[in-house]
């Protein structure tokens, strides 16, 4: 480290960041903390690219006429926005960055169970990303991120196969990460760290890993079948030889609906950590929050048919899927209620991460409740394929993930880099993002309810005001993302030097230094107390 900070006198402590500076020491590392930073850089690049495509979408929708680009170009823009954001940012962001960094630290292990597989999963991620980027640079793809057949197999003249291959490859990165987390959580916990002493972040990642390993392979084989249909004309989803396009939708959503929970569950884990720390209280109903993650993972696998209410699915199947979709709201609500109950009589402080917690709860509640509209068969028929859907899933997926991801990144930034971010800027950016997000996506609920369909580059004039609001919000949101990017990079060099535990937080990751030594702990810790053993009340008084 340079001498700009105020390190205590004496020789600089050895930690994972100053243990080697060469390119090989990063690209060939098996240290989960360094791999997390490799992921951090990669998903940031992907997020920026995905955001760039979103800018084009919002610019086109500023005016009712399709005047900025042709319909085909517009189709490519929203497709590539969706693919980059879903597969290369939302799915990996929290688990591959924060999960990778924190799970071994939180459970008192020196590394993940399979360090080399962890590195491999990053390389696979990069390879998949390069394939998809290649496809985009050489002409793009216009099928929507959902690849619906037979358009994707027979009619689209764009780069379906290279893009699909990129997603196929990236899927294995997800599978290996899930596998690694699962084995690690089962086998690498420190002595005394029983399952019910685990931080809820770890529970959430365990549930996420279940979805990753059970869902992702199904997407992989589905992509293979689409590629066989497209390249060799196998016809598995081609009605001309008896194939069933709806079968494709079943297989696709069998992964892609649970994928939403891959995105949101890790974020929920982050929120549990933050809410406990900034209310200085044990999370209310710990066991319920832990099991609600598993419940979401399991029930989440049984609701995929709600994407197909208008696809010619049998009405009885639709009724079952509708009921199950309502059921999945229960564990989600358990979490929200328990977080708010945690605040009760807590010693609450409003640092940046806590602002993101409030942001998360607000956005997730709106997104979740509108999900109930969509689970109702009648309402869904009205708003299907409208901007109502677009608004709903952005509230859940983007609102949920971004709030959890940025909240977590701020919270653990001192641990990751050994430096504090500037608090004032942090709070300001959190506010800007929250305002920008709502201004972008809330008007889309109204647009959708009024009947504006998604995926068109032109629209009737009466929708313009709301679209202008949305585009304006997107500009604010974009600025909101740039602020943390700037001050976090700045803080790596000029930020205040962070102590080992700047927040007075509980958890093994705060018991080691900031940044942690290469092997995480000088000595493997022994765990003797519950998670979140905070004293919300004066010493001596019983705590909840």
């Amino acid at each position, binding site marked *: 480290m340079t001498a700009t900070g105020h390190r205590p006198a004496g020789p600089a402590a050895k930690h994972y960041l100053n243990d080697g500076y060469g390119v090989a020491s990063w690209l060939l590392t098996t240290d989960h903390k360094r791999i997390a930073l490799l992921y951090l850089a990669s998903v940031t690049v992907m997020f920026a690219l995905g955001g760039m495509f979103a800018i084009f979408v919002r610019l086109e929708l500023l005016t009712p006429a399709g005047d900025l680009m042709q319909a085909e170009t517009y189709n490519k823009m929203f497709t590539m926005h969706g693919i980059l954001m879903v597969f290369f940012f939302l799915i990996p962001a929290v688990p591959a960055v924060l999960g990778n960094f924190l799970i071994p630290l939180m459970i008192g292990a*020196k590394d993940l*169970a399979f360090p080399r597989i962890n590195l491999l999963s990053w390389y696979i991620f990069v390879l998949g990303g390069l394939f998809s980027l290649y496809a985009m640079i050489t002409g793009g793809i216009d099928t929507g991120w959902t690849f619906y057949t037979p358009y994707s197999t027979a009619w689209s003249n764009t780069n379906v196969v290279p893009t699909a291959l990129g997603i196929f490859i990236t899927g294995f990165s997800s599978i290996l990460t899930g*596998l690694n987390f699962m084995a690690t959580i089962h086998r690498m916990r420190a002595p005394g760290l029983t399952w019910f002493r685990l931080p809820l972040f770890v529970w959430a990642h365990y549930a996420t890993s279940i979805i990753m390993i059970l869902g992702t*392979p199904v997407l992989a084989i589905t992509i293979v079948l689409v590629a066989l249909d497209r390249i060799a004309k196998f016809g598995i989803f081609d009605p001309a030889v008896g194939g069933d396009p709806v079968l494709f939708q079943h297989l696709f959503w069998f992964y892609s609906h649970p994928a939403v929970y891959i995105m949101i569950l890790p974020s929920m884990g982050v929120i549990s950590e933050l809410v406990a720390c900034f209310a200085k209280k044990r999370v209310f109903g710990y066991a319920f929050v832990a099991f609600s993650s598993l419940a979401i993972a399991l029930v989440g696998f049984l609701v995929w048919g709600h994407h197909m209410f208008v696809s010619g699915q049998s009405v009885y199947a639709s009724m079952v899927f509708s009921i199950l979709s309502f059921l999945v709201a229960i564990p989600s609500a358990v979490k929200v209620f328990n977080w708010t109950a945690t605040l009760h009589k807590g010693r609450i402080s409003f640092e940046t991460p806590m602002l993101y917690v409030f942001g998360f709860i607000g956005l997730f509640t709106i997104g979740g409740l509108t999900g109930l509209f969509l689970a109702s068969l009648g309402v869904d028929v009205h708003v299907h394929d409208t901007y109502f859907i677009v608004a709903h899933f952005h509230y859940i997926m983007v609102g949920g993930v971004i709030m959890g991801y940025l909240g977590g990144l701020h919270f653990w930034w001192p641990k990751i880099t050994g430096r504090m971010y500037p608090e004032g800027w942090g709070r300001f950016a959190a506010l800007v993002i929250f305002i920008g997000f709502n201004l972008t996506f809330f008007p889309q609920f109204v647009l959708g309810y009024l009947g504006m369909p998604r995926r068109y580059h032109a629209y009737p004039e009466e929708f313009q005001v709301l679209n202008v609001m949305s585009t304006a919000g997107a500009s604010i949101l974009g600025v909101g993302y740039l602020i943390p990017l700037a001050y976090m990079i700045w803080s790596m060099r000029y930020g205040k030097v962070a102590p080992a535990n700047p927040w007075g937080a509980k958890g093994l990751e705060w018991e080691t230094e900031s940044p942690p030594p290469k092997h995480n702990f000088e000595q493997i810790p022994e765990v003797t107390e519950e998670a979140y053993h905070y004293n919300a009340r004066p010493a001596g008084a019983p705590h909840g």
Partner: protein
Amino acid sequence: MRAQPGPRMADTRQVLWHHFQSLEHQKETSALGMWIFLVTEILFFGGMFVCYVVYRTAYPDAWLSGSATLDVRLGAINTAVLIGSSLTMALAVHAAQAGQRRLLVAMLLLTMALGGVFLGIKGVEYHHKWVESLIPGPGFDFHGHGAGVTGVQLFFALYFALTGMHALHLVIGMGLMANLVRQGTAGRFDAAYYTPVEMVGLYWHFVDIVWIFLFPLLYLLGRH
């Protein structure tokens, strides 16, 4: 968990990773990881089995007439070959456990050879389908086998997808074994450390089991 002695050297390389307490701990963790991986493999093939079930239910006649074109004799021989390879693989694991290095290498090579025989026979079957214009796609033509039946192309699409994926797994398994042969010859495995052999063994048995399902589902329809 400290029953094992400290870091073991089976070769010049250390085989115990720093973050495990003991070789036993490391081996059990690897086994858990391998089983989780096999779960993902089940789901991977599961997607195709779902298609199989859906289309077989929709087109039972097409499935019968498609299945009738497959060579049960070759399929049965291949089943025997693959079960035999599972036996030799199990013997390889046993040899590694007992520290019998030469037997280990011999059994691995034998397993690879049986895998090769399987792929060879599979290749012959694929060639027959090629000659008979039964490769799904624009050139697909079932008229040589009686009147065209709706959905029969789907049978062959899934036949090739399933057996092709299975064959790919076999090739990967043989590659892994080639690596084991190299390491085994160099004396990397002994009674205390043979985890990779056991893991590849698990994988190979899984690939074998997939075929145990494929053979009746594809070849034996309507032959009861």
